[in-house]
């Protein structure tokens, strides 16, 4: 009986514990039109014309913690005007105005401003682009893929202490997110780590030499990833440095999206702007300093003199190392034959008999 008592009390405890752990935290995403009525079901989806399985499930929990949690669905999915809606054929336009008003402003929020900057940059779609180039150019979601819509973790520098001052007046929920939103942009040029930036630029795109060749990019662009990875910036980033330069450190201003070809006057890597660009990290930058090659490739065509120096040094290096090792081996062979042992034992290492032909 005693045993059953304990068992029941334990079971009760476990049941209460499980009940609490399954209770979802308060979800208050901006779903005024109740889209989640259907989209909350895990199984919602279909097999499309191409035979691919499409899931239309929206996780309430993830959505409630995502960056777009306060944006009503139809602010982005504007083409939906009836219920049940037609199959979606249009992509979301990130330049839409949404019904969110940022603090201290009466205008509706929109990504339009940065999209304009982006469209002017080398990655923006241009009218005279070839079809291949148009297809290859990245769009917002290519970089802002945000796989599960997680926010950047910003708990590094005196987070709680600083935040506690905000909480004197503001409510925790909103201000925590606003604080994180601002501070992670204050820490460094990008909220992503330099490693992620390099990955984003290189993987599937700038490191894809077949694609790059198809797009007829310049020789420098073809080798850009390789030469970056061989440079001191690239090696340090590859090993986990957080301070060395990544791609956008040099190729964009603080608006990140304004990447231009180097012969355009706006480009940060244009000769006229190089001093300013290098100055972000290096002190006392001069015109002469800006001449230093960042994506340096020492090949037979680019830098024949340095390339030949490198080859000659290689020969000298292998030649001397192997001849020195050869000398040491010959020396040991000769001395062993003359009767030396490996170790000094009882005061001498010359314990053996000389096996040389002529001996005194």
């Amino acid at each position, binding site marked *: 009986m005693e045993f059953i008592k304990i068992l029941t009390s334990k079971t009760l405890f476990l049941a209460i514990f499980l009940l609490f752990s399954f209770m979802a935290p308060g979800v208050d995403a901006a779903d005024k039109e109740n889209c989640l009525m259907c989209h909350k079901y895990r199984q919602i989806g279909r097999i499309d014309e191409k035979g691919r399985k499409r899931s239309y499930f929206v996780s309430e929990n993830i959505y409630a913690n995502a960056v777009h949690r306060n944006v009503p669905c139809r602010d982005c999915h504007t083409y939906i005007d009836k219920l049940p809606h037609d199959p979606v054929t249009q992509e979301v336009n990130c330049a839409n105005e949404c019904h969110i008003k940022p603090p201290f402003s009466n205008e509706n929020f929109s990504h339009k401003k940065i999209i304009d900057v982006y469209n002017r940059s080398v990655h923006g779609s241009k009218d005279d682009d070839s079809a291949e180039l148009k297809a290859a150019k990245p769009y917002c979601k290519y970089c802002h893929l945000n796989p599960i819509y997680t926010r950047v973790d910003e708990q590094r520098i005196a987070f709680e202490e600083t935040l506690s001052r905000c909480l004197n007046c503001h409510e925790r929920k909103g201000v925590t997110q606003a604080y994180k939103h601002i501070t992670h942009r204050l820490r460094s040029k990008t909220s992503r780590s330099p490693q992620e930036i390099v990955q984003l630029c290189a993987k599937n795109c700038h490191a894809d030499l077949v694609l790059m060749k198809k797009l007829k990019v310049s020789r420098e662009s073809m080798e850009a990833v390789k030469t970056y990875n061989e440079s001191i910036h690239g090696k340090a980033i590859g*090993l986990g440095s957080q301070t060395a330069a990544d791609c956008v450190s040099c190729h964009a201003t603080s608006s990140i999206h304004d990447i231009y070809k180097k012969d355009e006057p706006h480009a940060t890597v244009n000769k006229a702007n190089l001093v300013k660009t290098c100055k972000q990290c290096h002190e*006392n930058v001069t015109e002469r300093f800006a001449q230093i090659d960042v994506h340096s490739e020492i090949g037979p065509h680019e830098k024949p003199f*340095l390339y030949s120096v490198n080859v000659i040094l290689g020969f000298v290096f292998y030649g001397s*190392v192997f001849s020195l090792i050869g000398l*040491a081996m010959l020396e040991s062979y000769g001395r062993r034959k003359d009767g030396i042992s490996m170790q000094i034992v009882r005061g*001498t290492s010359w314990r053996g008999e000389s096996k040389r032909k002529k001996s005194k």
Partner: protein
Amino acid sequence: MSTSSENIAASSKEAGADEYYTYVEGVGNIPRDIYKYVKSDPLGDLPRYSYHIVIQHFLTFITFLILAATGLTLHFASLWWAPLVMKLFGGPDTARLIHRIAAALMVIASVYHLITIIGGTLHKIMTKKFNINRTQIPLIKDAHDMVHDIKYFLGKEEQRPKMYKFMYKQKLHYVAILWGTFVLVSAGTSLLFPETMATIWPNPRFGQDLARLMHADEAIMAITVIVFWHWSNVHLVPGRFPLQWSFLTGRITREHQIEEHFLEYVYNLKEFPEEREYMKKILRENGYDTN
């Protein structure tokens, strides 16, 4: 005393390096292969390096290992072991600092060495003890010694050449270290202070590329030579295995001194009466004449 030892050195050279017996006043005729019969203390019997040199070697050797470990990891950043070693040093940003501190220490050790060498040489010149044969300066004799020695290793000569305090191998290595340190320090300075060096280099683009190239190539060469040649030469070859204590004690074993630095041993005989007595005893035991 020093002048007389010079005379002996000179006379033995004139008498021919191939002579089996070398006459030393107060001892007698010393056969070239007497090193096979002497007793040695593994920690060293005869002085070779001053404590300055021992400290300098120790500083250089510790900083060299640190520089090699951090530098190679950065150079071979794409290899699988690089991130693991980098973690040991606390990430590339810390490793960079460690590399620079070690480099500064190595430069200090090099300057210390130059001061002791130049100062010591000046002192010797002033007290008329200077003997070019006992220095690291490469001479034509070293080329002859090398040919002679290789012939001995191949069994075509009866005995090893009679060499001074520094033999051809050591002089080669010393010149290589001078050159290597110069290249590594100057190229490293260029990499550390690119802003300043850009104002000095006639063509900064070329200069910086050259510095990057030379720093890496020279460092890898230095590391390879140290690991595969220097360490085997001083610690692994027969007679030196498992450890030659000279780099800590500053002293050399008697058999090593006679075998590879015979003329320096003659100098030692002139300097130390007890060494003369010991040599006489050994000669008598092995049936040679003494005086």
